[in-house]
């Protein structure tokens, strides 16, 4: 058997790692993981290539042609050129960006504040903990309906405001372009702050207590301890939490769509809503594929950047 591994044996001193036994187990490993690899190929690589292919054509399901015949309407990179000049696309991108810029920091700060409270013990901690996590477990579509009802002009939000300000307030939240976006962001913050809280709490608990004590003994105030010890120690986990929420917010859809349907007009039309409308109403799937690929590219670049930052943070701590 050893003789059969030709090239290795021919070398005078094969490196230790390339022993015949290793080769054998590597080959066995490959064979054992082959089904999984084929599966990955079909669920990830194949759709990606299919998407790329369609994005280079004007194919639409209305054409009556199967997708692999899409080459008949080949248009080179015209979809991508279109994308650059599509104002509705850029507006949707901008709105998505606004949602990220507002929701992620708010969720982060609220989550961090709550997590800081939950590091210490207090009466009823477990009960509050469970209550806090509940929004996260609500199905997004249900949350959408909840907030749809809450923000009706005769709904509870206006009732509360009326009581607070002492006069009858009837704001048409979901019909006003600015307020609708705010309402949508409030719903997102309500639902996803718990996730931020959960991740950050895990990070906070992992901060070495003795270093915090040492900082205290060196005269650091609670705020100084927080900024010089706690936050730097949590850097990696903060990056994870932020990255998860940025990516998720980029794809914000379900709750929002049920609350406003992207309206009034296109006031809350984020990128996912825009894609959804193009797919189901305009049926220009070649163009949709181009947008989806462009977004994938943006998110991939962002993710790689976040991962790199996280690895660097990991390197420094621990």
């Amino acid at each position, binding site marked *: 058997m050893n003789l059969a591994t030709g090239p290795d044996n021919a070398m005078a001193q094969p490196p230790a790692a390339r022993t015949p036994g290793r080769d054998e187990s590597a080959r066995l490993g490959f064979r054992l993981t082959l089904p999984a690899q084929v599966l990955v190929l079909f669920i990830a690589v194949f759709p990606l290539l299919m998407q790329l292919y369609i994005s280079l054509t004007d194919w639409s399901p209305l054409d009556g042609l199967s997708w692999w015949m899409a080459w008949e309407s080949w248009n080179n990179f015209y979809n991508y050129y279109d994308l650059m000049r599509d104002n509705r696309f850029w507006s949707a991108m901008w709105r998505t960006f606004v949602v990220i810029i507002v929701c992620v920091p708010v969720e982060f700060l609220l989550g961090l504040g709550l997590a800081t409270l939950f590091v210490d013990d207090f009466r009823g901690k477990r009960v509050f903990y469970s209550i806090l996590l509940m929004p996260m477990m609500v199905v997004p579509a249900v949350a959408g309906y909840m907030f749809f009802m809450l923000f009706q002009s005769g709904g509870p939000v206006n009732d509360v405001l009326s009581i607070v300000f002492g006069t009858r307030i009837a704001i048409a939240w979901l019909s006003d372009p600015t307020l609708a976006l705010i309402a949508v962001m409030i719903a997102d913050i309500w639902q996803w702050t718990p996730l931020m809280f959960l991740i950050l709490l895990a990070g906070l608990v992992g901060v070495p207590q003795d270093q915090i004590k*040492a*900082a205290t*003994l*060196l*005269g650091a105030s609670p705020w100084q301890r927080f900024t010089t010890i706690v936050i730097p120690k949590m850097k990696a986990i903060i990056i994870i939490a932020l990255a998860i929420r940025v990516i998720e917010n980029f794809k914000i859809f379900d709750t929002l769509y049920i609350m406003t349907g992207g309206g009034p007009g296109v006031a809350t039309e984020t990128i996912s809503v825009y894609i959804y409308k193009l797919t189901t109403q305009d049926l220009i799937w070649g163009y949709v594929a181009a947008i989806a690929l462009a977004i994938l590219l943006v998110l991939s670049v962002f993710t790689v950047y976040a991962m790199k930052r996280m690895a660097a943070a990991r390197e420094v701590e*621990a």
Partner: protein
Amino acid sequence: MSTIRLQNLVKRFGDFTALRTMDLDIGDGEFMALLGPSGCGKSTTMNMIAGMEEPSEGRILFGDRDMAGVAMGRRGVGFVFQNYAIFTHMSVRQNLAYGPRMQGKPKSEIDRRVVSIAKFLQLTTMLDRPAKGLSVNILQRVAIGRSAILEPAIFLLDEPLSNVDAAFRAVMRTELKQLQREFRQTMVYVTHDQLEAMTMADRIAVMDHGELRQVGTPLEIYNNPANVFVARFIGSPGMNLLPGQPSESDGGLVVDLGLLGVTAPLPEPLAQALRGHSGEVVFGFRPEQATLGVAGRGISAPVTVVERIGARTIVHLGEDETAIKVVIDNEIDAVLDAAVLVMPQMDAVRIFDRATGKAIGGIRG
């Protein structure tokens, strides 16, 4: 520099009493070791001095300032943690500069102090290294420097050598002692290792079960243990303690050790003290302060184990209540199970009350 006075200090955690009535005066510039087995209350005492825990009762005075209610960052106490608690996400320089930076000192002053402390601790070449992954002796110096830069009156060290491997401990001990001599600060050192306490401390406070058992210089504690706990705890191996009954004989007062035999007459001052005492006693002598001879009259017991540890040999005799250890310089041809005569140096013998465990006969040099 400052004295520390602990007055009637008590600490309870719920139903558990970690420390019962501790009184201790630590002198200015003194190196005091708190020594005891784990759970004896030594760390609790230290944490209360540092202000990490509030005493349940009693007072802590630095000089004549009562520390009650003074927050831990404002006591002027340097604290070196068991694992040093170095800020691993910072450089050595940032670690050293941490205290003054938190106090909002101007940058030029911080730089000057960091440079001078680094020079003193021979850390100058390390300043810009990340604190992560430094060797323990450098970590120890950084930990000390980080506290010392604030010029604390008092230094507290919580078992700083317990994570260090045995071979390196001797080096670290020497380094620490030298640093203390140069800083001349009051130091309180918590340890369960008597070797560390004996070699470094000016005085040792031996603690057990939340009580202070004895305070004294290392030699006082070694030579004149105040009670059986200290006698057994200090020394390696600890003192031989054999229950017996004093009785008069021709040569003077002796102790009848039952099956082991009868001791030689006690020296006069000790006999004098013992004559006024009634009840059973414990006859104690150090394993190093006895010799072995051929069987005859006196304490006699069979050899059970012979441990040869190179320079010296530990001979174990008897068992259970009558177990005796004798450390001798030379190799002997001890025959297992053969009865051997144990001859303690009678002037080094100590006698304890069997009921109370306290030493009888006062302090002798």
